[in-house]
């Protein structure tokens, strides 16, 4: 059934996503890494649905829906940031600094 392998791949993808979020500076790349993490989770949902029934697959549909909405909003924000500051490098976007 390849469940352990699928879960392992999911963990690897998730970790890659986390590291990407933590280490990259470009907002677009970080955004893509977030999507990668979401999809890693989707993969684990699908894998678990093999064991526990179809609920996991229903979740995946929801996650993809929300991810699509989130992608639209996120990209819109990034574009408007770029319009204001001519950059999407997060090092320079720190106006919430205490």
């Amino acid at each position, binding site marked *: 059934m390849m469940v352990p392998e699928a879960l392992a791949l999911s963990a690897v993808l998730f970790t890659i996503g986390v590291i990407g979020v933590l280490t990259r*500076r470009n907002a677009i790349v970080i955004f893509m890494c977030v999507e990668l993490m979401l999809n890693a989770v989707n993969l684990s949902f699908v894998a678990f649905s093999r064991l526990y029934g179809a609920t996991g697959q229903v979740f995946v549909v929801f996650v993809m829906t929300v991810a699509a909405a989130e992608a639209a909003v996120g990209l819109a924000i990034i574009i408007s940031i770029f319009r204001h500051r001519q950059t999407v490098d997060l090092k320079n976007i*720190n106006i*919430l600094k205490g």
Partner: protein
Amino acid sequence: MLLLQEAAAAGAHPLSGSVAEWIWLVPVFPLIGFLVNGWLSLSSVAKIGPKDPTAHHAHHGHETQGHGDAHGHDDHHHPAAHKHAKLVSIIGPAVLWASFGLSVSIFFALSGAHAEAPFVKTLFSWMPAGTLSVDAAFQVDQLSMVMTLVITGVGSLIHVFSVGYMREDPGYPRYFAYLNLFVFFMLLLVLGANYPILFVGWEGVGLCSYLLIGFWFSEKANADAGKKAFIVNRIGDFGFLVALFLLYANLGSLDFSGVNAGATQLSPVVVTAICLFMFLGCAGKSAQLPLYVWLPDAMAGPTPVSALIHAATMVTAGVYLIARSSILFSLSPVASLTVALVGALTAIFAATIGLKQWDIKKVLAYSTVSQLGYMFVAVGVGAYAAGVFHLVTHAFFKALLFLGSGAVIYAMHQAYHHTGNHDDAQDMRNMGGLRKFMPITFGLMWIATLAIAGIPPFAGFFSKDEILGSVYARAHGSTLADASLLGIPGSVLLYAIWAIGLVSALLTAIYMTRMMLYTFHGGNRSGEKERTHLHEAPWIMTGPLVVLGALSVAGGWLNLPNFFPAGPVQALHHWLEPVTGEAALRITHGAEAHLELATEYMLVGIAIAIAVVGIAFAVTRLRTETLVPKAQSPESEGFERVLEHKYYVDEAYDKVVVQPLVGVSRSVLWKGMDAGIIDGLVVNGSAYLARGIGWLGARLQSGQVSTYAWVLVIGVLGVLGAFTLR
């Protein structure tokens, strides 16, 4: 006590339904006077406020402390009298006369009723708090009526005198408002049927004393003297309060009747503690060692105030309190001996200071302290009637002396006023030879002097002799003689007290004669121009003096000694028996203290001899010719200098009490506690702490998304780790 219970069992008190039901009106009259005069004073305050061009005359018509330096201005027109002066002159004394009249009728009702138990008129329940219940109640008994008569009688005379003395003062209505208020509180003090009412009066007279000492408050010395009196009295009042707490804690009652009924059940230690704390209060109010220092300074007030408050009435409140609590004191020989000893030491201490004072009022002030010492000797040895007797006669002759000195100061000041002289109108070195100018005052003051010195047949002789005789008798046989204080047997102490009393009597005769010689005899030293303006005070001032003079002569008839051939023997003694008899009997082992007739004659002979020797010594040794006005007087030397500086007690208190207190307050309480700990650590410290925490929080808010992400991840890992490793 048996009699008390019998009377209570017998039902209605013989005085109920009589004029004594109106006892509450006696203090209310002066209260009305206070309200009216106070309103008159306040309603016209704008007219006499600081902006008024005549306001700086406030102290001008009269003497003040440190007078010589006080005058900085050269105008000498009379200040205008207050616009309500006429009305105030009527209301002020009239309310006192009304009280006096009512007191006299109640007095006669009481003496006609032959009541053994006190008549208590309860007005309303004042403090019903759990088991503590205090009524607003007045007590009519033999002791309270004697005090009431003295307060309202002598008080009325002093009020009349004040009309002449203070009439031109811009603060005239305020003066009478305070004076009326004082009488109200004083009457509350002596008429209250329980300790809390007494305490209200006690504090009230302290307040009025403060207000009147600082009556001319625009001069700092006067205001300071008022504060000193108030603060020193607080020390005593603390003791009084502790005594009340102890009484309530141990007896559950604060009524005189309740306390007296339960007193015998108290343990000796508790009684002694109560009495000693109570005596601390008395020492403050009645200016005994070591708290006497405020009374001489209190002379900064107007002279009639000195006569009323600081000689005749308020300062005797301590004597009244001990006589009122005689049952408690008789149960504690140690406390009684302490009272007598402190009284004796005060008597001789103040008398020696009085020998070298130049301010006429200071002489009288120390004389008052000394005589109060005598009264405490009397109530200390359980001769309560003798103490009250001396209280009464002292009120007569000391009020006369003070008012007489007021008349002298008034005359001196008028003379100085006419010529623009800025010398000290109270310094005896500036007086001399006043007998030619003020013959009435001169004669009356001599009567009072002979009375205080103890020359028969004047009032002071009888009361002082009674005290000394009582001390001598108690040394022979009493519970006090059997007890001991600080390891010294009581009988030895009592003999010593008796001897001290004799020496004080000698000193009294000397310093009083000295005062009279320097003031009225010899040549006049007030100056050529001033001399022509010296004259007798108006009749409104000399009139009260004449009445007091008559009382100073006849006052001794109140309580003639046993061996006296004629008259009502021991009248006051028998009169007070229902109040103080039980306590006095307990101290004398249940027997009436009687000395052998030969001993009595010997004691009287010694007393007279001492008074005569004192006067003769002063007359022959003091040379008025060598006196020069104050401005040219050299500094005295040696022990005289110590006496003139009052043993440097004020300086010592300043060094030992005031300076360390100020130092500790400044360095520890202010700089350390207030500025350091409260302001620095607590107030500013919490602000610094908040700012520091905020700074740390701000460091977290880097604004870098990746930092937040890191924190988030670490947090998630932490939570997951906690779940999995659990």
